[in-house]
């Protein structure tokens, strides 16, 4: 008995248009950030400094561009693979508008400096809650559709969608746990090493389960569609799926090699990262081999061109990633632009190009017309490809060059490039070329916008597409003898959900629980004390300005680092750091032992105009800290929040905290006045004083290299 129904194309189109709009916005913000790194005056006002714009770029491209791209592809393919309309139109639109509102909230709060200070999870707690709710709406809508489906078996793409949904939910909730201090500020529930481990378990798996698994699902649907032939090996796709989610979840610690993370956790991360090559390449080859016998069409069809380069880029990054996870290459690549090149081959190549391919494939079908210009689509392809090349290659050179310069010693055993800035200015040319690459890539995308616009004008949206399919026959008792276990689970989406969840939970738990559990993993150091109220306020400014985007606070145990920065970082030094601020990139020098290296006055001059103390510096000036009064009234609440998180301030200290902060600020101002013979006459109430207090505290708890391993708390 055939049933007639309609696919909802309107929602697909809404997500598709949002993908395009936010793609352009995200890329444009990225280009601005790239230019800010070479043209300091482009850091025009406090809301537009690099430290705030870079999180805006990453959030925009990951959650707005790729996020909407995922939803567009999922809403299109899910309905057709299940032969059913989405479960609820109401939920579809709630999902759509909820997600767009979250994006708008991010676009407002990030430039305002409202951030939790954890990379790729910067949004503050009220937005985190909104994300959770919208994600649940998406989940109900997806599972509702699966339950009312007309096709018994779930195609492999849907498995990827299910794993994406369940894992992203888990990652987001665990990593966002925080203690609020008012509506716009919170402190991470975890501190130091534990916070770092949770954050990179999240960060790595955000790449895995937001940028990879949903896109693999889309690849398994749209690539066969565009090539008009089935996937090369369905069996391989199943193995690919289970192996990928089995292994990915363990690999997070490779972001923290040579850090203060326990050695065994680092090794675990390395082993699983190397193993990842197998499923990743299994998937990549499965994608490429789907085109067997159809390669002649790749020459003509821009959709296939985009998809082939996307899958190839996926293959390249998933080989490079495991290699960068080995200690040898990581010691060279980490903290350099190599990482930036690596992620952009993934972002521009894999996510970007697959999205473009899908847009060019879907759009004419949604609008019942043909693409306005295949020539323009081809032009987009070539300009975009050139953009990726110009983006990535200079940054590979830059990363390698800078890393070698950091590590170079004279025959007498001194650093050749004592001044960090020399190593940065050496690679400035690469930053210009990267900006050129970004401009090309954005230019290509703008060509697509024109092409899309003209196509939309020529056609008319088929809002509801007629379809018919037989109703799903009811289950006839127990599975027959010939039926496989796997076919059993294939027909049971809920069991599938539970199985994926158990897999990722076990991986995550084994990785993290021991670090939380075994106290010997984070030895406490008796001389490490909580921050003073003024330092805590200064630290919040450091977080607000996104200083961690360019400055690390993690000295690795290499001679080249201990000579340059001082004693290597110990796990016990970070136990009061809610959140940790180790950073992942050094565009400026490491600050873990900045305290006491330079005078207060040096910092005072430097933050106002970095070139006044460091000729040619590319750091933005932070003049607004000299105008803005410190929000000193918030101090008691912040101290209380820290006490709730277990930071051992004495009882009643919150009430004395304002007084304490004022006294410390006065001390700094007096010292600066004295040292400058009265030239610096700073105001104690300004933000800059708190920041100086924090910078001068960094790493001083164990200075002098005498690390007394104290009693375990």
């Amino acid at each position, binding site marked *: 008995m055939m049933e007639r129904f309609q696919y909802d194309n309107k929602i697909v189109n809404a997500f598709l248009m949002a993908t395009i709009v936010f793609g352009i916005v995200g890329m444009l913000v990225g280009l601005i950030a790239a230019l800010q790194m070479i043209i300091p005056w482009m850091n025009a006002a406090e809301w537009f400094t690099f430290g705030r714009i870079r999180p805006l770029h990453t959030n925009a491209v990951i959650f707005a561009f790729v996020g909407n791209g995922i939803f567009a592809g999922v809403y299109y393919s899910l309905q057709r693979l299940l032969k059913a309309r989405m479960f609820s139109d109401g939920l579809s639109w709630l999902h759509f508008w909820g997600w767009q509102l979250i994006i708008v909230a991010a676009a407002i709060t990030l430039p305002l400096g409202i951030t939790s200070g954890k990379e790729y999870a910067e949004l503050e707690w009220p937005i985190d809650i909104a994300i959770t709710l919208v994600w649940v709406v998406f989940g109900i809508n997806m599972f509702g559709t699966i339950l009312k489906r007309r096709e018994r078996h779930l195609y492999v793409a849907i498995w990827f969608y299910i794993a994406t949904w369940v894992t992203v939910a888990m990652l987001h909730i665990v990593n966002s746990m925080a203690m609020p201090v008012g509506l716009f500020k919170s402190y991470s529930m975890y501190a130091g090493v534990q916070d770092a481990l949770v954050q990179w378990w999240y960060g790595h798996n955000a790449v895995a389960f937001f940028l990879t698994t949903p896109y693999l699902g889309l690849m398994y649907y749209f690539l066969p569609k565009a090539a008009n032939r*089935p*996937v090369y090996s*369905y*069996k391989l796709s199943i193995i690919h799926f289970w192996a990928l989610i089995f292994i990915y979840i363990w690999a997070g610690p490779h972001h923290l090699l040579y850090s203060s993370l326990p050695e065994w956790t680092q090794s675990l991360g390395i082993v699983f990262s190397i193993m990842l090559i197998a499923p990743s390449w299994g998937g990549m080859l499965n994608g490429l081999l789907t085109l067997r016998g159809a390669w002649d069409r790749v020459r003509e*069809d821009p959709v296939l061109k985009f998809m082939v380069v996307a899958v190839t880029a996926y293959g390249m990054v998933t080989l490079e990633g495991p290699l960068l996870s080995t200690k040898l290459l990581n010691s060279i690549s980490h903290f350099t632009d190599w990482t930036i090149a690596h992620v952009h081959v993934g972002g521009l190549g894999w996510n970007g190009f697959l999205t473009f391919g899908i847009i060019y494939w879907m759009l004419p079908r949604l609008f019942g017309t043909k*693409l306005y210009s295949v020539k323009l689509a081809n032009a987009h392809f070539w300009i975009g490809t050139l953009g990726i090349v110009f983006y990535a290659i200079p940054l590979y050179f830059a990363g390698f060059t800078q890393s070698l310069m950091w590590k170079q010693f004279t025959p007498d055993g001194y650093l050749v490039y004592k001044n960090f800035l020399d190593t940065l200015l050496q690679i400035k040319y690469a930053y210009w070329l990267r900006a050129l690459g970004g401009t090309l890539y954005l230019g290509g995308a703008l060509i697509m916008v024109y092409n899309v616009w003209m196509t939309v004008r020529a056609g008319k949206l088929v809002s509801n597409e007629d379809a018919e399919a037989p109703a799903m026959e009811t289950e006839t008792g127990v599975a027959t003898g010939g039926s496989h276990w*796997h076919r059993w689970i294939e027909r049971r989406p809920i069991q599938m959900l539970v199985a994926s969840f158990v897999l990722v939970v*076990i991986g995550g*738990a084994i990785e993290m629980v021991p670090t*939380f559990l075994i106290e010997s993993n984070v030895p406490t150091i008796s001389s490490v004390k909580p921050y003073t109220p003024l330092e805590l306020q200064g630290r919040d400014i450091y977080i607000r300005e996104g200083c961690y985007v360019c400055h690390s606070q993690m000295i690795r145990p290499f001679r080249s680092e201990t000579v340059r920065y001082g004693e290597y970082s110990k796990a016990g030094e970070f136990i009061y750091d809610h959140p940790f601020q180790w950073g992942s990139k050094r565009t400026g020098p490491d600050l873990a032992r900045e305290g006491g290296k330079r005078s207060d006055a040096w910092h005072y001059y430097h933050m106002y105009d970095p070139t006044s103390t460091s000729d040619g510096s590319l750091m933005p000036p932070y003049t607004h800290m000299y105008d803005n009064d410190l929000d000193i009234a918030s101090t008691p609440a912040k101290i209380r929040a820290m006490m709730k998180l277990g930071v051992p301030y004495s009882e009643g200290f919150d009430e004395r905290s304002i007084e304490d902060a004022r006294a410390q600020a006065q001390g700094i101002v007096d010292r600066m006045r004295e040292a400058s013979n009265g030239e610096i006459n700073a105001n104690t109430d300004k933000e800059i004083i708190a920041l100086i207090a924090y910078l001068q505290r960094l790493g001083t708890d164990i200075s002098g290299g005498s690390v007394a391993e104290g009693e375990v708390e």
Partner: protein
Amino acid sequence: MLKFIKHHMTSIVGIEIFPIIAFILFFTFFLVMLWYVITFSRKHVAHMEQMPLTDKGSPLPDGRSSINN
């Protein structure tokens, strides 16, 4: 906050073995899955791999499958 979790876990005797058990379960699951996938029937694979192609794929108005030809 974490203290609540910590103390409960440290009070479990022999908790060190838990991760090892979990890993073995995990890996066994993977091997079992591998075996079943390898023994899929041809008919089933054919049905599954045709799935994206069996919906008419909203062909272009003139019935072409590609924007090129």
